[in-house]
Protein backbone atom coordinates (compact mmCIF):
# COMPACT_ATOMS: atom_id res chain seq x y z
CA UNK A 1 0.00 0.00 0.00
CA UNK A 2 1.29 3.44 -0.85
CA UNK A 3 0.48 6.66 0.91
CA UNK A 4 -0.55 9.88 -0.80
CA UNK A 5 3.10 10.76 -1.41
CA UNK A 6 3.81 7.37 -3.00
CA UNK A 7 5.71 6.00 0.02
CA UNK A 8 4.70 2.63 1.44
CA UNK A 9 2.43 3.09 4.45
CA UNK A 10 4.30 0.37 6.31
CA UNK A 11 7.09 2.89 6.83
CA UNK A 12 4.70 5.53 8.19
CA UNK A 13 6.27 5.67 11.64
CA UNK A 14 9.79 5.79 10.30
CA UNK A 15 8.92 8.48 7.78
CA UNK A 16 7.22 10.48 10.51
CA UNK A 17 10.30 10.28 12.70
CA UNK A 18 12.57 11.26 9.81
CA UNK A 19 10.39 14.26 9.03
CA UNK A 20 10.22 15.33 12.66
CA UNK A 21 13.68 16.78 12.44
CA UNK A 22 13.80 19.78 10.17
CA UNK A 23 17.26 20.16 8.74
CA UNK A 24 18.21 23.78 9.05
CA UNK A 25 21.37 25.42 7.95
CA UNK A 26 23.50 27.07 10.61
CA UNK A 27 23.54 30.84 10.94
CA UNK A 28 27.07 30.90 9.66
CA UNK A 29 26.12 28.99 6.49
CA UNK A 30 23.09 31.18 6.03
CA UNK A 31 25.29 34.26 6.14
CA UNK A 32 27.73 32.74 3.65
CA UNK A 33 24.96 31.99 1.20
CA UNK A 34 23.44 35.43 1.68
CA UNK A 35 26.80 36.97 0.89
CA UNK A 36 27.04 34.90 -2.28
CA UNK A 37 23.52 35.88 -3.34
CA UNK A 38 24.16 39.52 -2.54
CA UNK A 39 27.26 39.90 -4.70
CA UNK A 40 25.79 38.13 -7.66
CA UNK A 41 24.82 40.47 -10.47
CA UNK A 42 21.40 40.05 -11.90
CA UNK A 43 21.55 38.43 -15.26
CA UNK A 44 20.43 40.59 -18.15
CA UNK A 45 16.81 40.49 -19.12
CA UNK A 46 16.32 37.82 -21.66
CA UNK A 47 14.94 38.46 -25.06
CA UNK A 48 13.47 36.37 -27.76
CA UNK A 49 17.00 35.87 -29.05
CA UNK A 50 17.89 33.89 -25.92
CA UNK A 51 15.23 31.37 -26.70
CA UNK A 52 16.73 30.96 -30.16
CA UNK A 53 20.41 31.54 -29.53
CA UNK A 54 22.23 33.24 -32.34
CA UNK A 55 24.77 30.45 -32.63
CA UNK A 56 22.08 27.82 -33.10
CA UNK A 57 20.27 29.99 -35.60
CA UNK A 58 23.46 30.62 -37.54
CA UNK A 59 24.23 26.93 -37.57
CA UNK A 60 21.02 26.29 -39.47
CA UNK A 61 20.52 29.52 -41.37
CA UNK A 62 23.99 29.95 -42.86
CA UNK A 63 24.13 26.62 -44.70
CA UNK A 64 20.51 26.93 -45.81
CA UNK A 65 21.07 30.47 -47.11
CA UNK A 66 24.25 29.39 -48.87
CA UNK A 67 22.50 26.50 -50.59
CA UNK A 68 19.56 28.62 -51.64
CA UNK A 69 21.88 31.39 -52.86
CA UNK A 70 23.84 28.93 -54.96
CA UNK A 71 20.62 27.54 -56.40
CA UNK A 72 19.17 30.98 -57.15
CA UNK A 73 22.46 32.20 -58.60
CA UNK A 74 22.76 29.18 -60.83
CA UNK A 75 19.13 29.49 -61.84
CA UNK A 76 19.43 33.13 -62.78
CA UNK A 77 22.75 32.56 -64.49
CA UNK A 78 21.39 29.83 -66.66
CA UNK A 79 17.92 31.17 -67.31
CA UNK A 80 19.12 33.53 -70.04
CA UNK A 81 18.92 30.91 -72.73
CA UNK A 82 20.76 32.85 -75.41
CA UNK A 83 23.67 33.86 -73.22
CA UNK A 84 27.04 32.18 -73.40
CA UNK A 85 26.90 31.44 -69.68
CA UNK A 86 24.05 29.09 -70.38
CA UNK A 87 26.30 27.10 -72.59
CA UNK A 88 29.01 27.18 -69.97
CA UNK A 89 26.58 25.78 -67.43
CA UNK A 90 25.50 23.05 -69.82
CA UNK A 91 29.12 22.15 -70.38
CA UNK A 92 29.66 21.90 -66.62
CA UNK A 93 26.65 19.67 -66.26
CA UNK A 94 26.93 17.06 -68.98
CA UNK A 95 23.68 15.37 -68.13
CA UNK A 96 21.77 18.52 -68.89
CA UNK A 97 20.61 18.88 -72.48
CA UNK A 98 18.41 21.34 -74.14
CA UNK A 99 16.97 21.41 -77.60
CA UNK A 100 17.58 18.61 -80.03
CA UNK A 101 21.30 18.49 -80.28
CA UNK A 102 24.14 17.27 -78.14
CA UNK A 103 27.41 18.86 -77.19
CA UNK A 104 28.76 21.84 -79.04
CA UNK A 105 31.26 21.41 -81.81
CA UNK A 106 30.86 24.82 -83.26
CA UNK A 107 34.06 25.79 -84.99
CA UNK A 108 36.09 23.17 -83.21
CA UNK A 109 37.77 21.95 -86.37
CA UNK A 110 38.77 25.41 -87.33
CA UNK A 111 42.45 24.94 -86.53
CA UNK A 112 42.72 22.24 -89.14
CA UNK A 113 41.93 19.37 -86.80
CA UNK A 114 39.29 17.08 -88.14
CA UNK A 115 36.87 16.04 -85.44
CA UNK A 116 33.80 13.88 -85.59
CA UNK A 117 30.76 15.89 -86.49
CA UNK A 118 28.29 16.78 -83.81
CA UNK A 119 25.01 18.52 -84.07
CA UNK A 120 25.03 21.53 -81.89
CA UNK A 121 21.96 22.53 -80.09
CA UNK A 122 21.38 26.22 -79.97
CA UNK A 123 18.81 28.11 -78.06
CA UNK A 124 16.13 29.46 -80.31
CA UNK A 125 17.01 32.94 -81.39
CA UNK A 126 13.93 35.06 -81.57
CA UNK A 127 14.44 36.35 -85.05
CA UNK A 128 11.51 35.03 -87.01
CA UNK A 129 11.48 35.49 -90.72
CA UNK A 130 9.32 38.45 -91.44
CA UNK A 131 9.62 38.63 -95.18
CA UNK A 132 12.04 38.35 -98.00
CA UNK A 133 12.73 42.07 -98.02
CA UNK A 134 14.30 42.05 -94.60
CA UNK A 135 18.01 42.04 -95.18
CA UNK A 136 19.05 42.06 -91.51
CA UNK A 137 21.90 39.87 -90.44
CA UNK A 138 21.62 37.52 -87.53
CA UNK A 139 24.18 39.08 -85.26
CA UNK A 140 24.44 36.02 -83.08
CA UNK A 141 25.11 33.71 -86.02
CA UNK A 142 27.54 36.13 -87.62
CA UNK A 143 29.48 36.45 -84.43
CA UNK A 144 29.56 32.76 -83.67
CA UNK A 145 30.15 31.40 -87.15
CA UNK A 146 33.83 30.57 -87.48
CA UNK A 147 35.56 32.41 -90.30
CA UNK A 148 37.38 30.40 -92.95
CA UNK A 149 41.13 30.83 -93.18
CA UNK A 150 42.25 33.31 -95.80
CA UNK A 151 45.58 31.64 -96.42
CA UNK A 152 44.76 27.95 -96.31
CA UNK A 153 42.42 25.75 -98.28
CA UNK A 154 39.63 24.30 -96.21
CA UNK A 155 36.49 22.28 -96.76
CA UNK A 156 33.75 24.28 -95.10
CA UNK A 157 30.38 22.70 -94.39
CA UNK A 158 27.46 24.21 -92.49
CA UNK A 159 24.25 22.41 -91.60
CA UNK A 160 21.42 24.62 -90.42
CA UNK A 161 18.04 23.60 -89.13
CA UNK A 162 15.61 26.47 -89.00
CA UNK A 163 12.03 26.92 -88.02
CA UNK A 164 10.25 29.23 -90.40
CA UNK A 165 6.75 30.55 -90.81
CA UNK A 166 6.44 30.40 -94.61
CA UNK A 167 8.24 27.48 -96.13
CA UNK A 168 7.92 28.40 -99.78
CA UNK A 169 8.86 32.05 -99.44
CA UNK A 170 11.83 31.24 -97.24
CA UNK A 171 13.14 28.59 -99.64
CA UNK A 172 12.89 30.99 -102.55
CA UNK A 173 14.59 33.68 -100.55
CA UNK A 174 17.44 31.31 -99.64
CA UNK A 175 17.96 30.42 -103.31
CA UNK A 176 17.86 34.06 -104.31
CA UNK A 177 20.38 35.01 -101.65
CA UNK A 178 22.70 32.17 -102.66
CA UNK A 179 22.71 33.31 -106.26
CA UNK A 180 23.28 36.86 -105.14
CA UNK A 181 26.52 35.85 -103.41
CA UNK A 182 27.73 34.13 -106.56
CA UNK A 183 26.84 30.68 -105.30
CA UNK A 184 24.60 27.98 -106.69
CA UNK A 185 22.06 25.44 -105.55
CA UNK A 186 23.11 21.79 -105.49
CA UNK A 187 19.77 20.35 -104.54
CA UNK A 188 16.43 21.59 -103.38
CA UNK A 189 13.42 19.66 -102.15
CA UNK A 190 10.21 21.52 -101.44
CA UNK A 191 6.76 22.14 -102.81
CA UNK A 192 6.46 25.44 -104.63
CA UNK A 193 3.15 26.42 -103.02
CA UNK A 194 3.85 24.73 -99.74
CA UNK A 195 3.27 26.91 -96.72
CA UNK A 196 3.84 24.27 -94.06
CA UNK A 197 5.99 21.15 -93.86
CA UNK A 198 9.70 20.69 -94.48
CA UNK A 199 12.11 21.78 -97.18
CA UNK A 200 15.68 20.73 -97.69
CA UNK A 201 18.20 22.51 -99.85
CA UNK A 202 21.94 22.33 -100.28
CA UNK A 203 23.72 25.37 -101.65
CA UNK A 204 27.30 26.31 -102.33
CA UNK A 205 28.52 29.81 -101.65
CA UNK A 206 31.93 31.36 -102.20
CA UNK A 207 34.14 30.70 -99.21
CA UNK A 208 34.80 34.40 -98.74
CA UNK A 209 31.11 35.01 -98.15
CA UNK A 210 30.28 32.02 -96.00
CA UNK A 211 30.03 33.95 -92.74
CA UNK A 212 27.63 36.42 -94.27
CA UNK A 213 25.72 33.58 -95.87
CA UNK A 214 25.29 31.68 -92.62
CA UNK A 215 24.26 34.85 -90.83
CA UNK A 216 21.73 35.80 -93.50
CA UNK A 217 20.34 32.32 -93.88
CA UNK A 218 19.87 31.83 -90.15
CA UNK A 219 18.06 35.15 -90.10
CA UNK A 220 15.39 33.60 -92.29
CA UNK A 221 13.97 31.76 -89.28
CA UNK A 222 14.64 30.57 -85.76
CA UNK A 223 17.62 28.34 -85.34
CA UNK A 224 16.77 24.91 -84.02
CA UNK A 225 20.22 23.41 -84.47
CA UNK A 226 23.36 24.07 -86.42
CA UNK A 227 26.60 22.35 -87.17
CA UNK A 228 29.68 23.78 -88.78
CA UNK A 229 32.52 21.57 -89.94
CA UNK A 230 35.85 22.85 -91.23
CA UNK A 231 38.41 20.46 -92.63
CA UNK A 232 41.82 21.74 -93.53
CA UNK A 233 43.10 20.23 -96.81
CA UNK A 234 46.15 22.44 -97.31
CA UNK A 235 48.52 19.61 -96.44
CA UNK A 236 46.87 17.32 -99.00
CA UNK A 237 47.22 19.99 -101.66
CA UNK A 238 50.84 20.59 -100.78
CA UNK A 239 51.62 16.90 -100.85
CA UNK A 240 49.90 16.45 -104.20
CA UNK A 241 51.73 19.45 -105.59
CA UNK A 242 55.05 17.91 -104.54
CA UNK A 243 54.14 14.69 -106.30
CA UNK A 244 53.21 16.66 -109.41
CA UNK A 245 56.51 18.49 -109.39
CA UNK A 246 58.40 15.24 -108.97
CA UNK A 247 56.55 13.76 -111.95
CA UNK A 248 57.35 16.82 -114.05
CA UNK A 249 61.06 16.50 -113.23
CA UNK A 250 60.93 12.80 -114.02
CA UNK A 251 59.25 13.39 -117.38
CA UNK A 252 61.84 16.03 -118.26
CA UNK A 253 64.64 13.61 -117.44
CA UNK A 254 63.03 10.85 -119.49
CA UNK A 255 62.65 13.19 -122.45
CA UNK A 256 66.33 14.08 -122.08
CA UNK A 257 67.26 10.42 -122.32
CA UNK A 258 65.22 10.05 -125.49
CA UNK A 259 67.52 12.54 -127.26
CA UNK A 260 70.39 10.08 -126.90
CA UNK A 261 71.04 8.66 -130.41
CA UNK A 262 72.69 5.57 -129.13
CA UNK A 263 69.46 4.14 -127.71
CA UNK A 264 68.18 0.93 -129.18
CA UNK A 265 64.64 0.72 -130.44
CA UNK A 266 63.44 -1.27 -127.49
CA UNK A 267 65.04 1.18 -125.04
CA UNK A 268 63.44 4.08 -126.83
CA UNK A 269 60.04 2.40 -126.66
CA UNK A 270 60.53 1.76 -122.96
CA UNK A 271 61.30 5.42 -122.22
CA UNK A 272 58.40 6.60 -124.32
CA UNK A 273 56.03 4.31 -122.44
CA UNK A 274 57.39 5.59 -119.12
CA UNK A 275 56.89 9.18 -120.24
CA UNK A 276 53.32 8.44 -121.28
CA UNK A 277 52.61 6.69 -117.99
CA UNK A 278 54.02 9.55 -115.89
CA UNK A 279 52.22 12.12 -117.98
CA UNK A 280 48.93 10.32 -117.38
CA UNK A 281 49.61 10.27 -113.65
CA UNK A 282 50.47 13.95 -113.77
CA UNK A 283 47.25 14.82 -115.55
CA UNK A 284 45.30 12.81 -113.03
CA UNK A 285 46.94 14.59 -110.12
CA UNK A 286 46.38 17.99 -111.78
CA UNK A 287 42.69 17.21 -112.11
CA UNK A 288 42.44 16.13 -108.49
CA UNK A 289 44.27 19.24 -107.42
CA UNK A 290 42.02 21.46 -109.45
CA UNK A 291 38.91 19.71 -108.23
CA UNK A 292 39.88 20.03 -104.59
CA UNK A 293 40.82 23.67 -104.97
CA UNK A 294 37.47 24.33 -106.58
CA UNK A 295 35.73 22.55 -103.71
CA UNK A 296 37.57 24.62 -101.14
CA UNK A 297 36.70 27.85 -102.88
CA UNK A 298 33.04 27.19 -102.09
CA UNK A 299 31.37 26.29 -98.82
CA UNK A 300 28.51 23.83 -98.68
CA UNK A 301 25.53 25.01 -96.70
CA UNK A 302 22.67 22.60 -95.99
CA UNK A 303 19.40 24.14 -94.97
CA UNK A 304 16.69 22.13 -93.28
CA UNK A 305 13.66 24.38 -93.12
CA UNK A 306 10.71 23.37 -91.00
CA UNK A 307 7.47 25.01 -90.16
CA UNK A 308 6.23 24.86 -86.60
CA UNK A 309 4.03 21.79 -87.10
CA UNK A 310 6.64 19.82 -88.94
CA UNK A 311 9.51 20.61 -86.65
CA UNK A 312 10.90 17.48 -85.12
CA UNK A 313 11.96 19.41 -82.10
CA UNK A 314 9.11 20.70 -80.00
CA UNK A 315 9.28 24.44 -79.74
CA UNK A 316 10.63 25.53 -76.41
CA UNK A 317 7.69 27.78 -75.82
CA UNK A 318 7.54 26.66 -72.17
CA UNK A 319 8.04 28.68 -69.12
CA UNK A 320 9.97 31.71 -70.25
CA UNK A 321 12.88 33.25 -68.41
CA UNK A 322 11.35 33.22 -64.95
CA UNK A 323 10.01 29.72 -65.36
CA UNK A 324 13.36 28.57 -66.67
CA UNK A 325 15.09 30.20 -63.71
CA UNK A 326 12.76 28.42 -61.30
CA UNK A 327 13.32 25.16 -63.10
CA UNK A 328 17.09 25.62 -62.89
CA UNK A 329 16.87 26.53 -59.22
CA UNK A 330 14.92 23.34 -58.64
CA UNK A 331 17.51 21.40 -60.55
CA UNK A 332 20.39 22.88 -58.54
CA UNK A 333 18.53 22.24 -55.29
CA UNK A 334 18.09 18.65 -56.37
CA UNK A 335 21.82 18.37 -57.00
CA UNK A 336 22.48 19.92 -53.59
CA UNK A 337 20.11 17.44 -51.98
CA UNK A 338 22.01 14.63 -53.66
CA UNK A 339 25.29 16.00 -52.34
CA UNK A 340 23.80 16.35 -48.84
CA UNK A 341 22.52 12.80 -48.98
CA UNK A 342 25.95 11.65 -50.04
CA UNK A 343 27.59 13.55 -47.18
CA UNK A 344 25.01 12.10 -44.80
CA UNK A 345 25.74 8.57 -45.97
CA UNK A 346 29.46 9.11 -45.63
CA UNK A 347 29.10 10.83 -42.25
CA UNK A 348 26.54 8.41 -40.75
CA UNK A 349 29.11 5.88 -39.48
CA UNK A 350 31.02 8.66 -37.76
CA UNK A 351 27.84 10.00 -36.18
CA UNK A 352 26.92 6.51 -34.96
CA UNK A 353 30.42 6.07 -33.59
CA UNK A 354 30.14 9.41 -31.80
CA UNK A 355 26.79 8.46 -30.29
CA UNK A 356 28.17 5.10 -29.13
CA UNK A 357 31.17 6.83 -27.55
CA UNK A 358 28.90 9.31 -25.83
CA UNK A 359 26.64 6.50 -24.54
CA UNK A 360 29.54 4.44 -23.26
CA UNK A 361 31.03 7.49 -21.56
CA UNK A 362 27.69 8.21 -19.91
CA UNK A 363 27.34 4.61 -18.77
CA UNK A 364 30.83 4.64 -17.28
CA UNK A 365 30.10 7.90 -15.53
CA UNK A 366 26.84 6.52 -14.09
CA UNK A 367 28.65 3.43 -12.89
CA UNK A 368 31.34 5.53 -11.28
CA UNK A 369 28.67 7.64 -9.55
CA UNK A 370 26.91 4.54 -8.29
CA UNK A 371 30.19 3.26 -6.88
CA UNK A 372 30.78 6.58 -5.16
CA UNK A 373 27.32 6.59 -3.63
CA UNK A 374 27.37 2.93 -2.67
CA UNK A 375 29.63 3.61 0.34
Amino acid at each position, binding site marked *: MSGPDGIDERFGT*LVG*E*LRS*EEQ*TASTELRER*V*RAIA*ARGPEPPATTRRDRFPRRRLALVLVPVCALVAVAVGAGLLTSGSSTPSRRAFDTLMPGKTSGSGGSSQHGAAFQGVTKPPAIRSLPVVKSPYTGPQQPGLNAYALQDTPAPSGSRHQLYTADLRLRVSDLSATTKQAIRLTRGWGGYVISVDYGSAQKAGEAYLVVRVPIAKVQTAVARLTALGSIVADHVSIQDVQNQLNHRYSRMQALRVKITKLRGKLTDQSLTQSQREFFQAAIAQNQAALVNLEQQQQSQMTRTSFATVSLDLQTKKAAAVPPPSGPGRIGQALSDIGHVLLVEAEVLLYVLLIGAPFVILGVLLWLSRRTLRRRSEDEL*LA*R
Partner: protein
Amino acid sequence: MPATLTRRSQIDFAAVCEENLDGVFGYLLYLTGNRAVAEDLTAETFERALRRLRRFDPRRGTAKAWLLTLARSTALDHFRSEQRRRKREGTYALLDAEAVESDVFGHTYSPALEAALRSLSAGEREVVALRVLLDLDGETAARLLGISPTACSTRLHRALQKLEEKVRDDVRA
Protein backbone atom coordinates in the same frame (compact mmCIF):
# COMPACT_ATOMS: atom_id res chain seq x y z
CA MET B 1 4.23 32.35 -2.18
CA PRO B 2 7.47 30.64 -3.16
CA ALA B 3 10.21 32.66 -4.81
CA THR B 4 10.74 31.60 -8.38
CA LEU B 5 13.50 32.02 -10.88
CA THR B 6 12.05 33.20 -14.10
CA ARG B 7 13.96 34.21 -17.12
CA ARG B 8 11.72 37.09 -18.18
CA SER B 9 11.11 38.80 -14.92
CA GLN B 10 13.69 40.18 -12.57
CA ILE B 11 15.38 37.30 -10.92
CA ASP B 12 15.24 37.23 -7.15
CA PHE B 13 18.17 34.98 -6.67
CA ALA B 14 18.58 35.93 -3.01
CA ALA B 15 15.00 34.91 -2.23
CA VAL B 16 15.43 31.62 -4.06
CA CYS B 17 18.61 30.96 -2.05
CA GLU B 18 16.86 31.77 1.18
CA GLU B 19 13.94 29.54 0.39
CA ASN B 20 15.96 26.52 -0.72
CA LEU B 21 18.95 26.77 1.59
CA ASP B 22 17.64 24.35 4.22
CA GLY B 23 16.51 21.86 1.62
CA VAL B 24 19.84 21.86 -0.20
CA PHE B 25 21.74 21.64 3.07
CA GLY B 26 19.56 18.77 4.33
CA TYR B 27 20.04 16.87 1.09
CA LEU B 28 23.80 17.34 1.19
CA LEU B 29 23.90 16.40 4.84
CA TYR B 30 22.18 13.10 4.08
CA LEU B 31 24.36 12.54 1.07
CA THR B 32 27.69 13.19 2.77
CA GLY B 33 26.87 12.24 6.35
CA ASN B 34 29.08 15.05 7.54
CA ARG B 35 27.77 18.38 8.71
CA ALA B 36 30.93 20.43 8.01
CA VAL B 37 31.32 18.96 4.52
CA ALA B 38 27.62 19.52 3.85
CA GLU B 39 27.94 23.17 4.81
CA ASP B 40 30.93 23.68 2.51
CA LEU B 41 29.20 21.91 -0.35
CA THR B 42 26.04 23.94 0.19
CA ALA B 43 27.98 27.17 -0.14
CA GLU B 44 29.73 25.82 -3.23
CA THR B 45 26.39 24.79 -4.71
CA PHE B 46 25.05 28.32 -4.45
CA GLU B 47 28.29 29.67 -5.90
CA ARG B 48 27.77 27.39 -8.89
CA ALA B 49 24.14 28.38 -9.12
CA LEU B 50 25.13 32.01 -9.32
CA ARG B 51 27.68 31.32 -12.05
CA ARG B 52 25.27 29.21 -14.07
CA LEU B 53 22.20 31.30 -13.48
CA ARG B 54 21.86 32.09 -17.20
CA ARG B 55 21.64 28.41 -18.02
CA PHE B 56 18.62 27.94 -15.82
CA ASP B 57 15.49 27.22 -17.83
CA PRO B 58 12.24 27.20 -15.80
CA ARG B 59 10.56 25.16 -18.52
CA ARG B 60 12.79 22.24 -17.66
CA GLY B 61 12.05 22.18 -13.94
CA THR B 62 11.72 24.17 -10.74
CA ALA B 63 14.49 26.19 -9.13
CA LYS B 64 14.53 23.69 -6.30
CA ALA B 65 15.15 20.76 -8.63
CA TRP B 66 17.83 22.73 -10.45
CA LEU B 67 19.60 23.59 -7.19
CA LEU B 68 19.43 19.98 -6.04
CA THR B 69 20.93 18.84 -9.34
CA LEU B 70 23.78 21.28 -8.84
CA ALA B 71 24.17 20.09 -5.25
CA ARG B 72 24.37 16.48 -6.40
CA SER B 73 27.00 17.26 -8.99
CA THR B 74 28.97 19.28 -6.42
CA ALA B 75 28.81 16.39 -3.97
CA LEU B 76 29.89 13.86 -6.60
CA ASP B 77 32.85 16.05 -7.51
CA HIS B 78 33.73 16.19 -3.84
CA PHE B 79 33.48 12.39 -3.52
CA ARG B 80 35.71 11.94 -6.54
CA SER B 81 38.37 14.30 -5.24
CA GLU B 82 38.18 12.60 -1.84
CA GLN B 83 38.56 9.23 -3.45
CA ARG B 84 41.61 10.40 -5.37
CA ARG B 85 43.05 11.95 -2.24
CA ARG B 86 42.54 8.80 -0.21
CA LYS B 87 44.06 6.67 -2.90
CA ARG B 88 47.02 9.01 -2.99
CA GLU B 89 47.48 9.08 0.77
CA GLY B 90 46.51 5.47 1.29
CA THR B 91 44.59 6.24 4.45
CA TYR B 92 41.00 6.14 5.55
CA ALA B 93 41.56 8.05 8.77
CA LEU B 94 39.27 10.85 7.72
CA LEU B 95 36.53 8.42 6.78
CA ASP B 96 36.75 6.83 10.22
CA ALA B 97 36.75 10.22 11.91
CA GLU B 98 33.60 11.17 9.98
CA ALA B 99 31.91 7.96 10.99
CA VAL B 100 32.24 8.50 14.71
CA GLU B 101 30.65 11.95 14.64
CA SER B 102 27.44 11.92 16.63
CA ASP B 103 24.13 13.71 16.01
CA VAL B 104 24.99 14.25 12.40
CA PHE B 105 21.49 14.00 10.96
CA GLY B 106 19.40 15.47 13.70
CA HIS B 107 19.34 16.24 17.38
CA THR B 108 15.84 14.88 17.86
CA TYR B 109 16.56 11.56 16.15
CA SER B 110 16.87 8.56 18.40
CA PRO B 111 20.39 7.09 18.63
CA ALA B 112 19.08 3.99 16.86
CA LEU B 113 17.80 6.00 13.90
CA GLU B 114 20.98 8.05 13.82
CA ALA B 115 23.08 4.88 13.72
CA ALA B 116 20.80 3.29 11.14
CA LEU B 117 21.08 6.34 8.89
CA ARG B 118 24.85 6.23 9.18
CA SER B 119 24.84 2.57 8.19
CA LEU B 120 23.06 3.33 4.92
CA SER B 121 25.06 4.06 1.80
CA ALA B 122 25.19 7.59 0.43
CA GLY B 123 22.95 6.54 -2.44
CA GLU B 124 20.32 5.14 -0.06
CA ARG B 125 20.38 8.21 2.17
CA GLU B 126 20.13 10.37 -0.95
CA VAL B 127 16.84 8.87 -2.08
CA VAL B 128 15.47 9.09 1.48
CA ALA B 129 16.43 12.74 1.61
CA LEU B 130 14.81 13.54 -1.70
CA ARG B 131 11.59 11.61 -1.23
CA VAL B 132 11.04 11.84 2.54
CA LEU B 133 12.77 14.99 3.78
CA LEU B 134 12.33 17.22 0.74
CA ASP B 135 9.07 15.54 -0.25
CA LEU B 136 9.87 15.52 -3.97
CA ASP B 137 7.53 13.56 -6.17
CA GLY B 138 8.78 10.29 -7.61
CA GLU B 139 9.25 11.62 -11.13
CA THR B 140 11.29 14.67 -10.14
CA ALA B 141 13.46 12.63 -7.81
CA ALA B 142 14.02 10.01 -10.49
CA ARG B 143 15.01 12.66 -13.03
CA LEU B 144 17.43 14.16 -10.56
CA LEU B 145 19.00 10.78 -9.87
CA GLY B 146 19.12 9.90 -13.54
CA ILE B 147 17.05 6.76 -13.15
CA SER B 148 13.49 5.70 -13.94
CA PRO B 149 10.63 6.46 -11.50
CA THR B 150 10.22 2.73 -10.89
CA ALA B 151 13.89 2.32 -10.03
CA CYS B 152 13.63 5.34 -7.76
CA SER B 153 10.63 3.86 -5.98
CA THR B 154 12.41 0.53 -5.56
CA ARG B 155 15.53 2.22 -4.25
CA LEU B 156 13.47 4.16 -1.70
CA HIS B 157 11.59 1.06 -0.58
CA ARG B 158 14.82 -0.86 -0.02
CA ALA B 159 16.43 2.04 1.80
CA LEU B 160 13.48 2.46 4.16
CA GLN B 161 13.27 -1.28 4.74
CA LYS B 162 16.96 -1.43 5.55
CA LEU B 163 16.62 1.58 7.81
CA GLU B 164 13.69 0.05 9.65
CA GLU B 165 15.48 -3.26 10.13
CA LYS B 166 18.55 -1.51 11.45
CA VAL B 167 16.49 0.55 13.89
CA ARG B 168 14.61 -2.56 15.04
CA ASP B 169 17.83 -4.53 15.50
CA ASP B 170 19.39 -1.67 17.43
CA VAL B 171 16.40 -1.33 19.74
CA ARG B 172 16.40 -5.09 20.41
CA ALA B 173 20.13 -4.98 21.12
